C-alpha cells in the first residue's frame, strides 16, 4: 500500500503533493484504511438501511428465480452457481453504489481529498467496508439459497465459501473504484453497473463456474479459483496505482 501512493502521483505526471502541514506528519496508510473502514461500517450498521435493502433485494432475486425457473434439485445442479451470483451481484451493487454516496453530502469527499491521508488508503478503506457489508449479507443469503433451491447433498460448502470470498473481493475492489469514478458523473447510479459489469466478465465466469463445480461436487475448480485470485490481485493493484486519478479535487 505504501509504495503505491508515490508511484501513483508519479504516474499521473504530477509532483508528489507537498506536505500541507509540516508539524503534523502524514498519517500512515494502514491507519487511514482502518479508520475509513471502521467509520463506514459503523455508520452502515447503525443505520441498517443498506443492509436491510440488500438482504431483502437478494432474497427477492432468489425467490423470483425460483418462480422463473422451477426450483428443483436438477436445476440447481445445472445453473445454481449462476443464480446465486446474480443475486449476490444485484445485492452487491446496492452496497457499491453507496460506497461514495455518503461523501457527496456536505462536500465530504472534497474534505477527504484535501486531507493529507493517502488516497489509495481511503479507497482501500472504502473497499474493506463495502466488502464486509457484502459478505455479511451473503452469509445470510447463502443458507437461504441452499434451502430454497434444494442444494445437492454432494455440494462442498468449504469450496463455495472460498469462492464467495474471492468473488466478493473481485466485485468490491472494482466496484469501489468505479463508485469513486462515478461520483463525478451525471447519472452515477445508472453508470455503476455499466462500468462494473463489462470489466467483471472474467471474474463472473470464474465465480459462477467454481460455484457450479462445488455445488455439483465435480472436479476442476482449481483453475477458476486461481483465475479469480489472479483477477483480484491484478485489479486491486491497479486500483491502488490509479487511486489518484479518481480521488482528486476538480
Amino acid at each position, binding site marked *: 500500500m505504501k509504495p503505491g501512493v508515490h508511484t501513483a502521483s508519479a*504516474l*499521473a*505526471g504530477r509532483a508528489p503533493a507537498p506536505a500541507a502541514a509540516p508539524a503534523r506528519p502524514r498519517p500512515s496508510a494502514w491507519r487511514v484504511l482502518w479508520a475509513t473502514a471502521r467509520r463506514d461500517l459503523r455508520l452502515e450498521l447503525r443505520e441498517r438501511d443498506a443492509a436491510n435493502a440488500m438482504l431483502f433485494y437478494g432474497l427477492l432475486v432468489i425467490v423470483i428465480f425460483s418462480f422463473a425457473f422451477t426450483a428443483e434439485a436438477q436445476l440447481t445442479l445445472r445453473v445454481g452457481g449462476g443464480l446465486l451470483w446474480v443475486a449476490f451481484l444485484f445485492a452487491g451493487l446496492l452496497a457499491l453504489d453507496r460506497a461514495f454516496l455518503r461523501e457527496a453530502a456536505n462536500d465530504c469527499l472534497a474534505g477527504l481529498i484535501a486531507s493529507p491521508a493517502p488516497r489509495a488508503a481511503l479507497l482501500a478503506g472504502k473497499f474493506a467496508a463495502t466488502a464486509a457489508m457484502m459478505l455479511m449479507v451473503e452469509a445470510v443469503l447463502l443458507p437461504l439459497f441452499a434451502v430454497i433451491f434444494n442444494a445437492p447433498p454432494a455440494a462442498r460448502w468449504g469450496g463455495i465459501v472460498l469462492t464467495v470470498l474471492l468473488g466478493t473481493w473481485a466485485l468490491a475492489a*472494482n466496484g469501489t*473504484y*468505479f463508485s469513486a*469514478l462515478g461520483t*463525478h*458523473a*451525471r*447519472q452515477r447510479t*445508472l*453508470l455503476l453497473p*455499466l*462500468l462494473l*459489469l*463489462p*470489466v467483471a*466478465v*472474467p471474474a463472473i*465466469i*470464474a465465480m459462477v*463456474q467454481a460455484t457450479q463445480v462445488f455445488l455439483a461436487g465435480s472436479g*476442476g475448480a482449481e*483453475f*477458476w479459483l486461481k*483465475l479469480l485470485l*489472479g*483477477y483480484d490481485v*491484478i*485489479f486491486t493493484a*491497479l486500483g491502488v496505482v*490509479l487511486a489518484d*486519478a*479518481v480521488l*482528486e479535487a*476538480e
Partner: protein
Amino acid sequence: MTTPTPTRSAPLRRRAAAGGAWLYWWGGVTLALLLYGLVQALLLAPTEATMGIYYRIFYFHVPAGITGFAAFGVNAAASLWYLLRPRKAADALALAAAETGVVFLAVNLITGPIWAKPIWGVWWVWDPRLTLTLVIWIMYVSYLVLRQFTPRSELQPRLAAAYAMFLFIAVPIDYMAIRWWRTQHPQPVIFGGPNSGLDPHMAYALVVCLLAFLALMATLMRFRHRQEMLSHEILRRQRAAALKES
C-alpha cells in the same frame, strides 16, 4: 458565440484548413485502396469451393475485426500516455480510437452472423472467439458511455484514461476465462477454419482489404482527433472572449 470578430476567427479557420490537406491526400489513398480491395474481393479472387459466394464477406469481416482491435490498442496506448503526461492531444486520440474501434468491431459483429446463417445454419454461437469479440465490444461501448456521462472538464479525460486501463487489462483475463469456459463444454464442430491453406490470390485480396481498412481507420481517427482538438480550441476561445467581456 454570435458575433465573433474577424480577427479572432481567422486564425482558427486557417488552423482548421492546415490539417485538411493531409486529410484529402490520405482520404484519396484510402478510397483508392478500398475500391481496389472491393474489386479484388468481389470479382477477382477465386470463389471458395465449399462455401461458394458467401465466403466473400470474409474480405470485410476479417479486416474489420483486426482493425477494430488495432484501434483499441491505440486507445490503450493513448490512455497510458495521458496518465503519464496529461495532454489534450492524448485524450483526443484515445476518444477517436475508441469510437473508431467500436464502429469497426460493430462491422465485424454484424458481418459475422450474415455469413454464419447460410453456412452454420445459425446466427450466433457462443464460440470463444465470438464471445470474446462481443465482450470487448461491450467494454468499449461502456467506455464511450462513461465519457458521455461525465461532464466535459479537466476531470473527464483522467477518468476515461483510468477506465481504459481497467478495460485493457481485463482483455487477456477475459481471453483465458472465455477460452476455458467454452472448451469445458461440448460444442458442435462446425468448421475447420478458413485460413487452413488459403489460396495465394485470396491471401492477396485479404491483405489489400486489410490495408484499405487500416488506412480507413487512420483517416477516421485523424478526422475525429482533429475535430476534438478544434472543439477544445473553440471552447478555449469562447472562454477567453467571455472573460474579456466581463
